[in-house]
């Protein structure tokens, strides 16, 4: 019954979208709609959890068929372990975002542009993971894209949002078309469109290789794999914050779902080179993503680039899992896949949390530019706390959840030398170094983001006056904080829940965690490695309180407020603080001067000249210059050439027709 119920809930979302469209301007509409979305997402979350638990107990995946869509084929739905897991991921974040929006929705100045599309967006994402045939999958996929596109251009008055929407929809269409190619190859050229039939007839190796290429481009363009990520930092910040959270937090995960579904489920047995390719792509994406992020000073864009980084980390896990699976190391495959899927969950939690916090900052100050914020921790302590937890989690710091998936990924990397291929032997440790680098840089980046936005002194009046947002929004963030902490200290529960999924996809799963002593997380064997977030958390809390107690009891507890010391320099203007750009300067100098051709130009006036000195910083994105500009130039040039070549008089057009006729007749004469 759970699958029909889930579909009913999804159609409820679509119905709500239709109903809310005419009354979107009313003040109650936003509360009612988001309330409904919250309810529906929570129920879907419960369905996902329940199914996953049932699947752990060996239950069959329910199937459903509806006579819609392609005539004769219909639309198939299926709720297996993977779908259930992604259902949880989607709806956990979705309910938090909906809760957030119940409060913050009233600040929206264009509710009619947001409300009707928000539930459709949710419905699209849910349907993608439930669909069990090509048409249903692509249909939902594209509905998801189009609905989110509408949300991206909701605030269309800013030209950069329109540009973002433009780039976004084109990349989304590219993604759909490439998936169409994938499924065209897999479905035996349109013969059987439902996934069960595709599973029953695995493609030949050549077809599978082509399909892999297509699916990596298709889902990569949606998930943001470098170099297909360019739309992401444009589009995600443009949408309203709770939508940005969902786009970054879960829409990219839906793309990952597509990748997993095809590569692990439909493509048949993999080759190790596939794994190597995805691994390399993931490593590149992780490192470049975080370097991009470090160069940003727009809070939401920075977060969007971090999504790119995290997608890279997930891809590393998936690539490893493929490599292990190709070599028949089911245990390793299960470990790497668990790491990847765990990170999917984690990223959905902390990225949504971070975007919601950024949304709260945006609501409170109207600013997303880090260089115009500062000191918000005083006006918005709870938001600051939430953002802090999110930052720590995304920087892979123990005992939070981000660390767990990173730890699992590193464990998977550590058993990779057992792989027989030399390329993998060399590649995997390098990617591991890349993983470590990206985690360290992420920490640097979030020190920068949190420091610039919440710490220090307020750089503008708006930041000075900021106060906390609505209760419900804070509650949404706190729920996500709790989820991050829980997944961090009790990772065994998540790993156990993933067992049916990995069993389904790679035929093996990690050791049962719940039976381990002290709830310790064990990757393969306890002798080899183990991690206990709970004990660590308790330990840190104990030691911190012990030290606090000790210091306060045995030494001084007096505290005095005074001006900042600052090596004796007098109190200066807030503008002298380190900004986001200045914070990133050392790292920029180390990493970006080659990669992004970052250049600083200092225009220092001569002594006696009263004009202000200027520092100009230029950063070039090599991907735009190398990949996208040539395409754009090619299209416009071709258009220009064709239109000027065919700008003809009537007589010349007649000549064309005539020429075609003669050509065809000549062809005919030759053919005969």
């Amino acid at each position, binding site marked *: 019954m759970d699958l029909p119920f889930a579909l009913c809930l999804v159609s409820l979302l679509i119905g709500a979208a239709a109903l809310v469209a005419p009354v979107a301007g009313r003040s109650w509409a936003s509360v009612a709609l988001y309330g409904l979305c919250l309810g529906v997402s929570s129920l879907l979350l419960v369905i996902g959890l329940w199914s996953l638990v049932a699947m752990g107990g060996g239950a069959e995946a329910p199937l459903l068929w509806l006579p819609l869509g392609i005539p004769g084929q219909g639309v198939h739905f299926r709720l297996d372990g993977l779908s259930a897991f992604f259902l949880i991921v989607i709806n956990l974040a979705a309910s938090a975002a909906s809760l957030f929006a119940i409060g913050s929705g009233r600040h929206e100045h264009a509710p009619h542009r947001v409300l009707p599309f928000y539930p459709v967006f949710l419905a699209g994402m849910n349907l993608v993971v439930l669909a069990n045939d090509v048409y249903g999958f692509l249909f939902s996929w594209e509905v998801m894209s189009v609905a989110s596109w509408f949300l991206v251009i909701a605030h269309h008055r800013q030209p950069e949002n329109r540009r973002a929407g433009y780039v976004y929809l084109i990349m989304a269409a590219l993604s759909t078309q490439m998936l169409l190619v994938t499924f065209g190859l897999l479905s035996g050229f349109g013969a059987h469109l439902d996934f069960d039939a595709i599973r029953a007839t695995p493609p030949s190796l050549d077809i599978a290789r082509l399909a892999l290429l297509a699916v990596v481009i298709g889902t990569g363009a949606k998930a943001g794999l470098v170099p297909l990520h360019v739309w992401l930092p444009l589009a995600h910040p443009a949408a309203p914050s709770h939508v940005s959270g969902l786009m970054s937090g879960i829409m990219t995960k839906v793309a990952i779902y597509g990748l997993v579904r095809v590569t692990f489920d439909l493509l048949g047995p993999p080759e190790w080179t596939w794994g190597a390719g995805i691994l390399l792509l993931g490593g590149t994406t992780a490192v470049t993503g975080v370097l991009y992020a470090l160069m940003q000073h727009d809070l939401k864009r920075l977060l969007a680039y971090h999504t790119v980084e995290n997608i890279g980390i997930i891809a590393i896990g998936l690539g490893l899992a493929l490599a292990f699976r190709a070599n028949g190391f089911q245990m390793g495959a299960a470990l790497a896949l668990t790491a990847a899927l765990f990170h999917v969950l984690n990223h959905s939690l902390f990225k949504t949390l971070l975007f919601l916090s950024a949304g709260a900052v945006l609501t409170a100050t109207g600013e997303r530019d880090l260089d115009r914020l500062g000191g918000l921790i005083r006006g918005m302590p709870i938001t600051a706390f939430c953002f802090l937890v999110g930052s720590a989690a995304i920087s892979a710091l123990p005992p939070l959840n981000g660390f767990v998936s990173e730890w699992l990924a590193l464990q998977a990397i550590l058993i990779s030398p057992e792989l027989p291929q030399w390329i993998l032997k060399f590649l995997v440790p390098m990617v591991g170094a890349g993983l470590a680098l990206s985690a360290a840089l992420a920490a640097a980046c979030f020190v920068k983001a949190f420091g610039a936005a919440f710490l220090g002194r307020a750089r503008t009046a708006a930041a000075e006056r900021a106060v906390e947002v609505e209760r419900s929004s804070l509650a949404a963030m706190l729920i996500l904080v709790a989820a991050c902490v829980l997944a961090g200290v009790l990772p065994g529960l998540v790993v156990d829940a993933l067992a049916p999924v990995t069993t389904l996809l790679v035929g093996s799963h990690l050791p049962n965690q719940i039976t381990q002593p002290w709830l310790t997380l064990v990757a393969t064997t306890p002798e080899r490695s183990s991690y206990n977030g709970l004990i660590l958390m308790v330990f840190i809390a104990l030691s911190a309180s012990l030290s606090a107690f000790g210091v306060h009891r045995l030494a001084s507890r007096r505290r005095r407020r005074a001006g900042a010391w600052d090596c004796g320099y007098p109190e200066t203007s807030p503008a002298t603080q380190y900004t986001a750009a200045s914070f990133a300067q050392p790292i920029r100098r180390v990493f970006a001067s080659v990669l992004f051709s970052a250049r600083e130009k200092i225009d220092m006036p001569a002594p006696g000249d009263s004009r202000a000195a200027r520092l100009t910083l230029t950063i070039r994105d090599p991907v735009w210059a190398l990949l996208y500009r040539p395409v754009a130039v090619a299209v416009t040039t071709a258009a220009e050439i064709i*239109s*000027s070549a*065919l*700008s003809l*008089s*009537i*007589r*010349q057009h*007649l*000549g064309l027709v*005539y020429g075609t*006729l*003669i050509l065809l*007749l*000549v062809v*005919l*004469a030759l053919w*005969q």
Partner: protein
Amino acid sequence: MLGQSFPFDMAHMLAGGMVTVSFMLLFQDRLIALIWFLALHALALALALAWQAHRQAADDLYVAAALALVVKAILIPMGLRWLVRHLQIERTVEAVVGVGMAMLFGIGLVALSVMVMLPAATHSPLMWEDLSFALAVVMLGLLIMITRRNAMAQIIGLLSVDNGVTLAVVGIRGMPLVIDLGVACLLVAAMVVFAIYFKHIHQRFDSVDVHVLDRFRGEES
């Protein structure tokens, strides 16, 4: 003297005559002369039709021949002549391509037409001949259209194409008369529409050279 092949030769001669007139149309450079030759073209068509009617003893072909004579050889040329006189544009029109080139090209076209129809020769030589010539006239008519820049000359080219199309009918028996009638009606209607536009264009641009109109085509260049 009239050998076994006389009926065939006669048909051959009339159809060939049309091709020849088409060639003449190709290098006429005055409007009035073009109209005359168009009439001649249609006359040859009417004769060819009549000859076939006689040969096959098909009454409907007689009607078709009469129709061709009245509408195509008399009515339309008269109308065009009236239009030319009315608008006082009896000046020469220059061919864009050199006459020699056009001729050479025309001969190539005739060869192509023959080649294309070659496999059909197995059925009946008469049909093959007839269709080849019809195709050649169509192709030549189109060539006339694209070598002229005067709207009137282009229409004359189109009419000669139409004559070529009708020539194809010669070889078939039993073409329903209603079709011929319908085609003829439409042709007249089309000419009326054309006349209206031609007049409008002439009034507005004081020219019927289609190049003048090029400025107003919507394309960007």
